[in-house]
């Protein structure tokens, strides 16, 4: 069976019966977890939990601009700084090619890579933190995500474990198989699930979302879309009204 290039999942039945907790979401991680991830063929696992797309929050220690990419070293204190590479669009002027200065706290969304036994990230989004409480939230999301993902390996899917008092809840999920690993609210996960289910290349428009989500106001939908986009779950396509999920379905 010839597997397609790029991100398509291989055709044909999955022959592996081995139980795995496949994360189709973006998993928040520490640099130490990424460094410890084991690679088997094309996949990475942290304690048997499969990961691919991750988010990391850390401070930029070093930034080096090359013609086609910017190489950052991002430090979250859990290990040595990690290499994060961001490919720049050489055709696009302004915006995307601005180098984030060292000393800035950022949230990175990207794919884990390993080359000659050295781990690095290829970032599709690097966002300077404007509100440092996001850094604290990321810490909590990491513990929550890895706890849930690992527990799902050993038992049937069940209600998420109760989170320690004082922290707002992870968010309920109306049906579907999504794991509540990213601290999304009910509105955000509804919007995300709709966007994920959209098969067309240009993605789902805000108008279509409003049509399908009768009870949600346009401003609530826009807020959800803005949040999901900043977290790296979705990206805009033909214009700012159309979005696709970053998950490779």
């Amino acid at each position, binding site marked *: 069976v010839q597997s397609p290039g790029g991100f398509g999942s291989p055709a044909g039945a999955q022959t592996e019966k081995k139980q795995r907790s496949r994360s189709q979401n973006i998993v928040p991680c520490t640099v130490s977890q990424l460094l410890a991830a084991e690679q088997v063929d094309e996949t990475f696992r942290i304690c048997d939990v499969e990961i691919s797309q991750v988010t990391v929050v850390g401070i930029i220690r070093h930034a080096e601009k090359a013609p086609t990419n910017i190489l950052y070293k991002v*430090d979250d*204190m859990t*290990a*040595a700084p990690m290499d994060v590479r961001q490919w720049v669009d050489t055709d696009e002027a302004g915006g995307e090619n601005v180098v984030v200065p060292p000393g800035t706290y950022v949230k990175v969304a990207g794919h884990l890579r390993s080359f000659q036994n050295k781990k690095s990230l290829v970032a599709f989004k690097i966002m300077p933190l*404007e509100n440092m*409480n996001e850094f604290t939230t990321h*810490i909590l999301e990491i*513990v929550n995500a890895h706890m849930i993902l690992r527990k799902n390996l050993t038992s049937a899917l069940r209600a998420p474990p109760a989170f*320690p008092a004082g922290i707002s809840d992870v968010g309920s999920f109306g049906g579907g198989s999504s794991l509540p690993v990213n601290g999304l609210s009910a509105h955000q996960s509804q919007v995300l699930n709709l966007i994920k289910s959209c098969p067309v290349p240009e993605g789902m428009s805000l108008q279509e979302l409003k049509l399908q989500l009768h009870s949600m106001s346009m401003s609530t939908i826009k807020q959800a879309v803005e949040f999901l986009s900043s977290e790296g779950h979705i990206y805009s396509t033909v214009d700012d009204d159309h979005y696709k999920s970053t998950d490779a379905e």
Partner: protein
Amino acid sequence: MGDLQEVARPRIAAGQLAQHIGQPVCFVGRVEKIHPTGKLFVLSDGVGKHTTVELSEPLDEEISGIIEVVGRVTNQATIMCMSYVQFREDKSPFDLELYNEALKIIHEFPEYFPFG
């Protein structure tokens, strides 16, 4: 002392300094006071406990608000600072109490938030 950036620096609260004597740590706190010499300052953590941070060179700038210090814990349970950054609070104040709660969680679940 060398550059601590290449190793894990556990995030701790003031109450944990004693358990990390001689070790690299990362401490986040609010500036309470700065010594006139500029070679030492005091930070408070999310439960109001104070920590003394020492510098090998005096401060060359005013610091205030929330500071994140990377350094090594001395025998006196102070922190010998290697580097520091100020958290931005221009758009939103930093919730230091929430950060303290997060520290409790990462210390309760080191298997989900490993240092090193």
